[in-house]
């Protein structure tokens, strides 16, 4: 039986997808700005972040409104509360894309420290994880969500590689490289945090679909 709530939930779904698309676009543009050392592109990401912030507030308000007016239960309740969490995670992802662009602006007028090898790999992992996490939400695909959660360790390893190289091979040997190495180090951390947020999204999707809590309980994924 079609309910009035269903129409409202569809609207909420659309808004969350829009948040997802904007967050993915922000990550993509921030990495392109880094690769191309493009100041204007980086600035554009920074300038358009307010759009995402406004949408986050609108989604939050819609979710609270739905809870107040409809007192949703079961699957509807889990969808709305997951929507609120996803909303917050996606806004943080977009913020991290802004942070990457801030680092790009710090780097763009300085000579390139080294060819970028691992950071692009890490950014590819981050983009795929975010994309798959959002996809798992759209398709209610628990298997895809679980794959995202389990791929977080690859992101951690890549970030560690970047950190070790920048600290041991550059900053420890030549302190003058710090002004270029530190922003790269921070970029790797921002990308790894993006992967963490994608993991969070996927954990929330598992709860939404199966009412199963896998957050902080990775062993539950094996069951």
């Amino acid at each position, binding site marked *: *039986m079609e*309910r009035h*709530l269903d129409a409202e939930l569809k609207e909420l779904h659309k808004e969350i997808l829009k948040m997802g698309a904007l967050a993915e676009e922000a990550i993509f543009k921030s990495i392109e700005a880094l690769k191309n050392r493009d100041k204007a592109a980086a600035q554009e990401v920074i300038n358009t972040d307010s759009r995402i912030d406004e949408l986050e507030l609108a989604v939050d308000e819609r979710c609270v409104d739905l809870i107040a007016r409809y*007192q*949703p*239960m*079961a*699957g*509807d*309740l*889990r969808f709305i509360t997951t929507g609120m969490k996803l909303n917050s995670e996606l806004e943080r992802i977009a913020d991290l894309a802004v942070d990457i662009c801030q680092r790009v602006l710090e780097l763009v007028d300085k000579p390139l420290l080294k060819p970028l090898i691992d950071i692009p790999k890490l950014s590819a992992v981050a983009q795929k994880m975010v994309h798959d996490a959002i996809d798992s939400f759209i398709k209610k695909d628990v298997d895809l969500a679980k794959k995202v959660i389990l791929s977080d360790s690859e992101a951690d390893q890549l970030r560690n590689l970047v950190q070790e190289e920048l600290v041991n091979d550059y900053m420890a040997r030549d302190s003058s490289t710090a002004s270029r190495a530190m922003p790269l180090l921070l970029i790797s951390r921002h990308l790894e945090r993006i992967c963490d947020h994608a993991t969070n999204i996927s954990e929330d999707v598992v709860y939404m679909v199966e*009412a199963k809590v896998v957050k902080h309980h990775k062993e539950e994924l094996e069951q």
Partner: protein
Amino acid sequence: MSKIATKNLNLWYGEFQALINVNLAVQEKRITAIIGPSGCGKSTLLRVFNRMNDLIEGVRVTGEVMIDNQNVLGGDFSSLVQLRKKVGMVFQRPNPFPLSVYENIIFGLKVHHLAKKNDFDAIVQHSLESVLLWDDLKDRLNSNALGLSLEQKQRLCIARAIAVAPDIVLMDEPCSALDPQATAKIEELMRELKNDYTIIIVTHNMQQAARVSEDTGFMLLGELIEFAKTEEIFTKPKDKRTEDYITGRYG
């Protein structure tokens, strides 16, 4: 051990089977809600516990209903009066007797010979205090109960039920005749009373069941479909029929 346990409980009104193999365990000093669409058998189930269905012609019941290990259907209680002392009931429409407030409370005490006349005053005070009516009515104990507000009448009915010190209080849609404010107060009262009594409430108001109960059973077409902790029923029901009902998709 459960306070109330039913085993393969079936009930017919003539040819119509109203309860089908109901197996239910109600825990002591908790509020248990029974929800379900109209005609699903929830009030019928409630009335099994104090055998109010005996008053209906053509009723047939099979199975077991144990209260504190005594079989309600098997004659373990010496009389229905004794059973109904142990298992009190509050109805949808407040139904105080056309007597004074005081007489309403002591009516059950007299029927069951539960107390000496000297103790009546203290029991009346305690019962009215338990339902937060003492301050309002202590100077009007001799006034006719029919002159009270609907909410006060319902509180009085609850006080009357608990005056005989039951173990269990059955509530059949106790708030459906009350406004939201009165409903909120009765719900608060239920939360207080569960410290001393096992409460089973039948309600068609799912939000009420979610607010006040700790365990919830969903019934449909005479069957108990699902029974679990209230937070589980309302956030992650196991049966699709339960999910469909509580999300408003049923029907």
